[in-house]
């Protein structure tokens, strides 16, 4: 008893044993158990081909994209404590965040992380293309990945408006301005003038897709609220579901790609 190390003593306690139901992962049985028995780690296979763990092959970009997504979720949650999405308060809340929170870097991490996530998701896609990993049987998962890429851009885009400064509203004005040129569904798009009955214009700036997106004819308070909800709740929920599908299919389609 006395020649046991402190680590072994901790491992022998009832508390430790209740949390980790297996010994240290230094033998085959426990290495399998640690992956299979842990809800977070069980996303991994127990064993995988050596080529699939090499950094030179994976570049780790997909994993980092997910990690940054989690980091953005946490920092975003913290920011939500300080931020009110109204034209009256939004900008001042950001100022207050900057002025009154000592050593605060949550907004910085959130903003730079958002940019970083766009970059890592692009590079992940580049790697997947260059290794031909979209080829059968992984065609469907590539499609899920493309949707996730689009949603990443939309997450970043909707978040861009929230500081409610000049940079924000004009970038969103330029970006959302494209929606009014949507064929048939935007008031300045081709085909919109076909949708009129006599003098009654069916697609106008009061009801086209841009109006639905912004909740108005310009980037105003309704747009702020819409973008806030899209950014904090709606898109993250969809992304969360699709990430689950994406990861599940990585495993079900035979794990990370390797030569057939």
């Amino acid at each position, binding site marked *: 008893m006395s020649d046991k190390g402190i680590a072994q003593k901790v491992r022998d306690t009832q508390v430790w044993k209740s949390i980790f139901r297996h010994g240290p992962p230094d033998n085959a049985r426990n290495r399998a158990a640690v992956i299979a028995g842990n809800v977070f780690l069980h996303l991994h296979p127990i*064993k995988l081909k050596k080529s699939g763990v090499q*950094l030179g092959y994976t570049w780790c970009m997909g994993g980092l994209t997910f990690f940054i997504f989690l980091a953005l979720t946490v920092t975003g949650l913290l920011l939500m404590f300080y931020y009110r999405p109204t034209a009256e308060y939004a900008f001042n809340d950001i100022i207050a965040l900057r002025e009154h929170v000592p050593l605060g870097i949550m907004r910085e991490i959130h903003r730079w992380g958002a940019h970083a996530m766009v970059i890592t998701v692009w590079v992940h896609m580049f790697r997947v293309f260059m*290794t*031909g990993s979209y080829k059968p049987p992984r065609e469907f998962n590539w499609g899920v990945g493309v949707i996730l890429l689009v949603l990443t851009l939309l997450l970043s885009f909707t978040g861009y408006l929230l500081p409610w400064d000049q940079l924000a509203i004009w970038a969103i004005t*330029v970006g959302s301005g494209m929606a009014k040129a949507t064929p048939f569904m935007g008031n300045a798009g*081709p085909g919109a003038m076909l949708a009129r009955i006599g003098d009654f214009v069916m697609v106008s700036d009061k009801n086209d897709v841009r109006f639905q997106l912004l909740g108005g004819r310009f980037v105003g308070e309704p747009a702020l609220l819409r973008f806030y909800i899209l950014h904090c709740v709606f898109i993250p929920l969809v992304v969360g579901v699709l990430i689950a599908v994406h990861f599940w299919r990585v495993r079900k389609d035979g794990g990370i790609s390797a030569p057939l």
Partner: protein
Amino acid sequence: MLRELVNKLSDPIISFPMVTIGFYLMLKYYKIVGTKKFAYWTTALLIPITTWFLADPNFFSIIKTPDNIPIIILLLLVGFVTWFAIHKAAENDTRIEAGLCPIEATPENREKVWSWPNLVYTELFAMIACTAFLVVWAIIFKAPLEESANPTWAPNPAKAPWYFLGLQEMLVYFDPWMAGVVLPGLIVAGLIAVPYIDTNPKGNGYFTFKERKMAITAFLYGWLVLWVYLIIVGVFLRGPNWTFYGPFEFWDFHKVVASFNVNLSEIIWIKMLGVGLPKNLVIREIFGIILSVAYISLIPPWAAKATKAGRELFLNLGATRYYIFMFLVLMMTSLPIKMILRWLFSLKYIVALPEWELNL
């Protein structure tokens, strides 16, 4: 003197053909590009050039904008990963030519290893490194915040977030319905369609260029030249009124660029035929309409018949896949085509139907 030359060269009229030629050379001599020696020499060459760029106050004032820092990270990363992918592909192609298997397929690499510790520790390390990187970045650079939103005062230039600037740059050549809606939609649809169009079974799970030349060339051209390059132009070279400014040029609000762009219908009816524009819209634009329809409906069958590569592709893919592939490629190349027509003939629209908001 040298700075003026760089300013001139970076104008898309010159830099776009240069980038395209550079892209072609990169793939043609990919085995040389993929050597470590090439990477060392390029880096050695780029360091003094970058230093020289940064020493310029005008260029530095654009670079130091906080939201432009991610673009610099993107450029460094894209440069590196492009080289790295080519490096890996060249290595594997040399092995395949020698009758060996790709490195990823060696018995040693096919061997199964435990996720714990091999995979989870790599992930842990990557997460720590990423966290450290983000924290340092966040401490050094404050998140940008300008004056409070003012709907009555538009900044000039008003730019979209940087990852959409490639699309905003396309607005120079296309109307919003194309640049902002149709082409981005086709990018997404085309990307999703990639695995269903590319029936080549080779190159699945390892880096190679030789076995997938067509797929990689098409994808890389879209990604590097039409996406990343246009973002660079949109971020660094477009100033007030979306006018071109060289990297060393001061963003002078009064810079006037003469532009007399004309439509195809005006060139043909007025300049060549010497008659006025016909009243009937369809007759007025008939040449542009015929050209546009012919572009997407005649080129694919012609290529399948007349060219060797086209015939092989048609036989390999079958009619449906072949046509979808050609359609996507033609839509992609419509951008460089419109750029070149603009620069050569000051052409504004091939089909100009502002009455229907339908300009091509």
